[in-house]
């Protein structure tokens, strides 16, 4: 059923616009005065103030690679993250671990692991898909660079950002 | 000092007045006319006639010429600049101008005022706006009123003619 909205009949004073104009001026001056005396909450002044302390646990920042407690790189170069990455930001070149290596039963390691941070959309699918829990989204959000190549995080950079993570995956450890 | 100013402004006025005719682009002509009006106003000011000078700027340069410019801009200017020079019209125009100058010189020379030197107008001690007002509203009150009515009639006439539905 159609509703008919009646147009309000304006009296002469209302049609002269003056009450509405004065009302508008009153509202803006209220905002002005409140701001002048510092009673208005304003946005964070970013470079000086940062919201790092207020950042939630589940914050999805830059994806990073982590090492385990034995300083072994957790990534086994299964390339699942490379396949699932929606913007195809991840490029992995797998390499084979030599037989005399302590972790030779892992068989593979990433020879190259690049994440193009211009492409990355911080979706967190790589973290979710990783069977080894080797890739984590950390809290770095200010990823900047002057060139495109600077914006590609290589393995070294990724481990530098990721650091070491203990526990979680124990299947490759030596049996006691 | 005043003589130098007089020559500067009269030359400027006449040159820009000539430019009004000589320019092919109507906007250039209109702006030359504005310049001519401004120089004329400056001449009035050198004669201590501040009121006339400022009114000259206010009415002609500030209002009338803006309307002119407004209309000119709505026209197709390219057709105007493309038009060829018409020799016959040019010669005719110069002939009329020459005749007019000769006529004016004769009339002015035959006037007794051309030989007399008038004393400068007595300053009343009031601004010239006051003098003009007193003259208009006392000595020339009737012509002033008639002109007022005439202007009113023409205003009403314009409003009537510009109505869409003329029956």
């Amino acid at each position, binding site marked *: 059923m159609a509703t008919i909205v009646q147009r309000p009949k304006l009296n002469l004073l209302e049609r002269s616009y003056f009450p509405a104009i004065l009302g508008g001026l009153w509202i803006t001056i209220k905002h002005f005065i409140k701001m002048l005396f510092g009673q208005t909450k304003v946005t964070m002044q970013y470079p000086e103030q940062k919201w790092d302390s207020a950042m939630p646990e589940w914050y999805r920042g830059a994806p990073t690679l982590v090492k385990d407690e034995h300083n072994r790189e957790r990534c086994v170069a299964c390339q699942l993250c490379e396949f699932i990455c929606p913007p195809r930001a991840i490029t992995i070149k797998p390499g084979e671990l030599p037989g005399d290596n302590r972790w030779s039963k892992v068989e593979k390691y990433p020879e190259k692991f690049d994440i193009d941070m211009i492409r990355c959309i911080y979706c967190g699918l790589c973290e979710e898909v990783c069977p080894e829990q080797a890739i984590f989204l950390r809290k770095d959000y200010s990823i900047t660079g002057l060139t495109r190549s600077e914006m590609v995080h290589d393995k070294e950079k990724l481990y530098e950002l990721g650091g070491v993570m203990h526990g979680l995956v124990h299947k490759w450890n030596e049996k006691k | 000092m005043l003589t130098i100013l007089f020559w500067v402004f009269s030359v400027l006025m006449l040159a820009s007045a000539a430019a009004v005719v000589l320019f092919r682009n109507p906007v250039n002509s209109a702006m030359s006319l504005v310049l001519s009006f401004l120089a004329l106003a400056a001449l009035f000011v050198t004669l201590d006639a501040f009121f006339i000078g400022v009114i000259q700027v206010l009415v002609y340069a500030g209002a009338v010429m803006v309307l002119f410019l*407004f209309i000119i801009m709505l026209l197709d200017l390219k057709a105007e600049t493309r038009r060829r020079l018409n020799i016959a019209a040019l010669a005719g125009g110069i002939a009329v101008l020459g005749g007019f100058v000769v006529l004016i010189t004769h009339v002015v020379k035959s006037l007794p005022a051309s030989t007399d030197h008038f004393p400068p107008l007595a300053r009343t001690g009031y601004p010239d706006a006051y003098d003009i007002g007193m003259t208009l509203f006392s000595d020339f009150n009737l012509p002033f009123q008639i002109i007022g009515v005439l202007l009113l009639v023409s205003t009403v006439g314009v409003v009537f003619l510009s109505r869409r539905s003329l029956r």
Partner: protein
Amino acid sequence: MPSLDLFLQPEIFLVWTAALKTFVILGVVLTMVAYSVWAERKVSAFIQDRIGPNRVGWAGLIQPVADGVKLLLKENFVPGGVNKFFFSIAPSLAMIPAILVLAVLPFGSSLFGVPMVIANLDIGVLWVFAVSSLGVYGIVLAGWASNSKYPFLGGIRSSSQMISYELSLGLSVVPVFMITGTLNLGEIVQYQVDHGWMVFPAWFQSGGGLLEITTDNGGMFGLDLGQSLLWIPMMISFVIFMIAMFAETNRVPFDLPEAEQELVGGYHTEYSSMRFALFFLGEYAAMIAGAGVIVTLFLGGWSLPFVPDGSQGWFWGLVNIGTFFAKVAAIIFFFLWVRWTLPRFRFDQLMKLGWYVFFEVALLNIFLTAGILAYLQS
């Protein structure tokens, strides 16, 4: 060997004091122009619950310098197909009239016996209108010479708007002249010193009032019958003049010539670098000049109640100058305040308001004033 006496000869004294006043006023006003741009950004930010410029200098106070440097260093681009001559002179034509208005404004009483006005013309008000009516050429020529549709529309709108509102502007101040009996801006201010401001006639010099409180220095505070009656047409004049001034200076809510949402940037769409800056500064200079005219005509110019003028010593002369610029700053704040409150008018509404309302009201106001004056004299 020219001695000091040479500088005190009347004619030479007039010349160098006028030159000095011109330089000082130009400096003060151009600084005010730069800082009113800063104030515009700051006020708009505060009204919208933001902080505004706060990076360059304390509270962003060096921001105008940074803006100026940026505009100076940009490429001065001339698009193809423009009329080069008019394209280049249009920004200057927009800036110069606004500055010329300042010549007749009495920005103070007197300092060391020198009257604080650059040119004390007997027809000061007409000079203001004549010069500000020339300001439209800059905008119209910029719009036409740019050879582009949006600037052209802006120029057309501007010319029709300014012609329409000049009428109400001129008619609305006629009552002021009828009351003061002069066109000289200095004398209009002196009248307000003696009889109270046009919009606030609460004191006067001679008796005959409804309510009188005599103060120590001989002035009287209270209500005068004549002044209180004349207050009604004065308020009407003030409101119309103020609104027409908004239209003349192309300020919101009448900024149709440069309506960003419809016309990109209006008449200065095609301009860049210092030419654009001249348009920008010209708009603010016109605003300051307009505010100065409003202050002079209606708000008592440099006067404050019971503050002596410059003949009582240089200190009071400086106080008078400060008062004038403080009042101008207050009016500019009002301009900014209105800009960040009201939406833009539609073009037909603008024309209707100018021709159907303000023109008639201003005309009737003249008759009202004449009636009151006739009643008071009888």
